């Protein structure tokens, strides 16, 4: 009994010594809400990778200084299974766990419901990759949400860039095949259709499918029968290879192009030579990286053995913006962080310059990349300024 008391006393004494030695840095909890499983697992993985890289860099450098005290970042990563309801549940879980802010989800179909949860619970959220305008707009008032931000451009801009790209590539009779059950795909398809028609090229076929479909032969046969010479596929990288292959199998000879949801090297692995030489619009091009971006690409490659894709780069920027805001806020408080986020007007990230004009949507350039299958990479083609 005596020995036990002695032991306990020793433990208490030791722990006192340890804690009193140096002022222990505080901990900031940042949540990540990512698509780790489900239809687009590579997106979630890239997001997680970039988040872990960022946090590792910050913590190695001793953390960040907020209001005169050092803080390290603790990541809480939740899988949203690429499902709207799980994304909302994950957001709620992170809120309950007391995160200061949440990064993610990435796909708009998950980001929109999660943004609702964030707004209701007054939890700041930055989506790295959700380009659908609805993510940052309050559906009831039609006004921008207070707590929701993003690190990427919106589809009102991307759809226009894609339409202009199609016309530039010589498409006269454009057709669209898109996932009608997914907000991102639907939103960008609508903007594309409106813009090409304004440019004088009516869409000859506007076909839809539902998330998870694997056979598109019925719709593609219709598109070919309509005499289309260009096919716009604003769909995710896991579905695009099937669509391209099936279109070519059915004898489609025209130009095929897409949007930022293509930007993953998995596309090349799944598609093979059928996707060679196709174009898509996206957020950043490793080829034309600034020194800051090059440092990020190098660090990412060293840690994970591959070139970061757009999701990784945007996640890194989302964290960059978040940390800038936390530093400026000067205290660990959600309201103060949102105030600080509102005040950021210009942020130079690895995906270029982000300019905020009072809303959560940045204004930034888009790039067009070309798929190079033998080289297993995407090469820079051109830049489109807003």
């Amino acid at each position, binding site marked *: 009994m005596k020995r036990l008391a002695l032991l306990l006393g020793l433990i208490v004494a030791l722990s006192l010594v340890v804690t009193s030695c140096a002022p222990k840095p505080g901990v900031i909890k940042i949540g990540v809400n990512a698509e*780790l*499983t*489900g*239809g687009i*697992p*590579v997106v979630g993985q890239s997001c997680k990778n970039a988040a872990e890289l960022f946090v590792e860099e910050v913590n190695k450098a001793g953390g960040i200084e907020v209001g005169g005290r050092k803080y390290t970042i603790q990541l809480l990563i939740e899988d949203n299974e690429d499902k709207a309801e799980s994304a909302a549940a994950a957001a709620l879980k992170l809120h309950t766990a007391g995160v200061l802010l949440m990064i993610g989800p990435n796909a708009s179909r998950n980001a929109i419901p999660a943004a609702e949860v964030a707004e209701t619970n007054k939890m700041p959220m930055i989506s790295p990759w959700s380009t659908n305008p609805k993510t940052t707009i309050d559906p009831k008032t039609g006004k921008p949400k207070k707590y929701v931000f993003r690190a990427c451009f919106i589809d009102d801009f991307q759809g226009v860039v894609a339409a202009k790209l199609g016309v530039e590539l010589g498409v006269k009779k454009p057709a669209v095949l898109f996932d*009608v*059950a997914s907000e991102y795909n639907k939103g960008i398809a609508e903007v594309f259709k409106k813009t090409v028609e304004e440019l004088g090229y009516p869409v000859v076929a506007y*076909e*839809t*499918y*539902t998330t*998870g*479909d*694997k*056979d598109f*032969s*019925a*719709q593609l*046969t*219709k598109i070919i*029968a309509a005499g289309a010479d260009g096919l716009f596929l604003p769909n995710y990288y*896991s579905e695009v*290879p*099937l669509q391209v*292959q099936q279109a*070519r*199998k*059915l*004898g489609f000879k025209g130009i095929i192009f897409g949007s930022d949801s293509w930007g993953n090297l*998995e596309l090349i692995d*799944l598609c*093979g030579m059928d996707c060679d030489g196709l174009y898509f619009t996206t957020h950043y091009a490793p080829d034309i990286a600034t020194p800051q971006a090059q440092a990020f690409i190098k660090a990412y490659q060293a840690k994970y053995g591959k070139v970061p894709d757009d999701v990784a780069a945007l996640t890194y920027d989302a964290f960059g913006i978040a940390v800038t805001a936390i530093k400026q806020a000067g205290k660990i408080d959600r309201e103060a962080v949102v105030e600080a986020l509102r005040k950021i007007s210009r942020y130079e990230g690895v995906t270029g310059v982000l300019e905020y004009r009072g809303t959560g949507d940045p204004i930034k350039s888009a790039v067009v990349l070309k798929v190079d299958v033998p080289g297993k990479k995407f090469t820079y083609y051109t830049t489109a300024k807003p």
Partner: protein
Amino acid sequence: MQTFFQQILNALQLGSVYALIALGYSMVYGIITLINFAHGDIFMVSTYVAFFVGSALMAYAFKLPGLITFLLTMLASMFFTAFLAVMIERFAYRPLRKAPRVSAVITALGVGLFLENFTLATIGPHPRFLPPIIPVHRFTIFGIATSNIQLIIIFVSAIVMFLLDTIVRRTMVGMAMRAISWDKFTVPLMGVPMDRIISITFALGASIAAVGGTLYGFVYTIDPYMGIRIGWWAFISAVIGGIGNIRGAMLGGYLLGLVEIFTPVILPSSTYRDFVAFSLLLLLLIFRPYGLLGRPVTMKV
């Protein structure tokens, strides 16, 4: 007109796969009146077996001709999947054979969930294609675009279905299966080894699904959850054709292939597809509950 025939060809490709899977549902139901809801996931496992065997053969084997590699891959997948199905029957369903029907159905759902999550945990969620065992050749006949792979899918399925039909109708094993489905109390008394025949039925159903799985993996991506929707569609095919009836399952499979292709052609979007398929099921259950080719069951008191 050309477009119409193109769509028919598209539907044949899908219908073949549905028919092959529907057969497994139908045969198992026919013999032990169990709806084997794990069958869609057994199909999923078969595509992964084909993926790994095919990749290994492509990587290590001696320069075999494409056709031989294809046959080896398919046989390996059939063999392994049959073994898996027999094990599932032995350890998950057989102990429940005398239990209320609903226990077995819930167990089947559980086995399905297990297979999905086991695959997800061990292999991961990334969609994959089977390696290009047979190089794709695309060509047009009479203005209809097709490929060698598509023709292989349609013809191999047809041959396999013909073989199965022959086994069930012309061999002793087939006769024993039909006998058990007719009367499972008297037939064992006549010296028919009931357990073995049931195992053979599961093995046959699963290996037919594996043929479908191997063919499917050539043209569509595979992932751990693929079995859910395809399983449902094959199940509807089996019920529409008359569950327990082999030719009915084949007919139902092709019919659902047509539904899938012609829904987006006639209606504004493919989103209506499930609606059309389930409506068809509902109508049939109301007006012809025993399916298109099934016989009405009369209960003796």
